[in-house]
């Protein structure tokens, strides 16, 4: 287990669709500690501390251009706080 009791979890829930596949792979690549749970229709990704989604990794996986705004096509929900969302990356973590 990588999770220490004092490190709080954050996470995102994505639609379990063909479109999300490359995204899930990119998130796994950039967040090696991520824990992936499949629920009907959903992929739930949780990680202690912070979760990052990088445009470059997603683009490599998808083989096309991808802007971070497009993330909202796949997201169902998240837990944590969106601490950064710019052209290059989205970072979810607790602030305090």
């Amino acid at each position, binding site marked *: 287990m990588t999770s220490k009791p004092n490190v*709080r*979890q*954050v*996470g995102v*829930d994505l*639609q379990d669709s063909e479109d999300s596949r490359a995204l899930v792979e990119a998130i796994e690549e950039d967040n090696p500690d991520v824990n992936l749970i499949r*629920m*009907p*229709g*959903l992929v739930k990704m949780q990680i202690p501390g912070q979760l990052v989604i990088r445009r470059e990794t997603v683009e490599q996986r998808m083989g096309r251009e991808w*802007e*971070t*705004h*497009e993330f*909202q*096509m*796949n*997201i*169902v*929900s*998240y*837990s*944590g*706080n*969106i*601490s*950064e*969302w*710019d*052209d290059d990356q989205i970072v979810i973590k*607790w*602030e*305090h």
Partner: protein
Amino acid sequence: MAKAKLSMRERYRLLTRDLDWEPTYVDPKKVYPYTRYEGIKIHDWDAWDDPFRLTIDSYCKYQAEKDKKLYAVIDGFAQGQGHLSLTDARYVNSLKLFLQGVTPLEYQAHRHFGYLARHLDGPGARFAALCQSIDELRHTQTEIHTISQYNKYYGGLHNWSRMHDRVWYLSVPKSFFDDGLSAGPFEFLTAISFSFEYFLTNLLFVPFMSGASFNGDLATMTFGFSAQSDESRHMTLGLEVLKFMLEQDEDNVPIIQDWVDKWFWRGYRLLGLVAAMMDYMLPRKIMSWKEAFELYLEQQMLEGLFPDLEYYGIRPPRHVEQAITEKEYMSHQVYWILYQFSFAASFNTTVPTDEELDWMSGAYPETFDRFYRPLWERARRLEEEGNRFFFRGLPMLCQTCQIPMGFSEPGDPSTLSIRTSQFRGERFNFCSDGCKWIFDREPEKYVQAWLPVHQIYQGNCGGTTIPEVLNWYGIQDGVDNGEYLTSPDKANWDKWHTGAVVGGA
């Protein structure tokens, strides 16, 4: 020469700051008259930051794409007779409850965010409210399209708008939202954006959409996930707005704490309907209410969010321990209410199957076999004897949440909880300490509650007999209501699945 594309941050700044101006010949307090009387102090609206940094072009582009995808699925669902691939027609009852309860709330949210898009002082906040207002209208529309798919084949969905204004169990979501709409803008944002859409949304939508997927309901899963993709924006707004208010002035903290306390309990009581749906109305279960509560509320919110809010001096909501105690039995108490009052509901209820009873024994080892299995077994015996159990009368209602007072003393499922307050010499009744506390804060507001039972007794609901009231509700007796096993939904489902040629409905 082509200009370099502006960054997201820059485009968002231009839209939300550059297009705004300070009023000079009208007092700003007259332009924005509603943002002071609640006691919330805002010194710098520019400190508002929307992490999504949406601009009009990208908003329109992605919303159009979402709609295109959604309506393609709904068309496919209609053409492929998707309603026949559900796990069971019984499933549709959870959908009925959800669509009857939620669709009108989406529309109310659309209206009220439109109002906020005009009346908040800060341009960033106004733009976020504008996007949300349009989103909520989209949700209303997608839900109506889903209603129209199911309405062709199943009872209970033909009259959802009127029912929302009249039917007893729908007064629960309606009064919840009306409570928010009739508050000031900051309380509304705390109630709906923070409490409902950030704090409680995962408990409301995620298990339900997964349940739809698991029960073969592609149409609902698709509108649900499509709406949820907007919801992640609404969640962000909810958390942002709360932090923004907390950071602006220390005097805001106690006011917000009170609202967090109030709207936690209001929202939690409303979720009782979701708890009942998850445990009883989904033929194939995804997780129990208790598990969902532990994951989404205890783990994500109490262990995740609240340590963050502690930084601002906000503690976990008042009465949350009672909700934690209730996770062991709350869904059973709510569905037991729905079961015995479904003669007046626009959906059907029935005794769970043996497999389901066993599943519940496993999911609720502390309470189910001891308190609830005997009730269900007796209800089944009565049903088999041709004496289906209904509560032959009208229930006592909670003045605040408006749910029949079927909740127990915390930790003691066999004793009903009844709290009372006196106000201006009149007695008011509550289901819980939480609901009483909310009333006692603002009795002048809640004395005006339109309690369905009392309205029937005042003669305001079409008459005093059950058939008259059902008629006034727009519920067709013997078609939309009552026991599932003897319902037209069940008879049709069996007919459609006998292997005989299916022609028409």
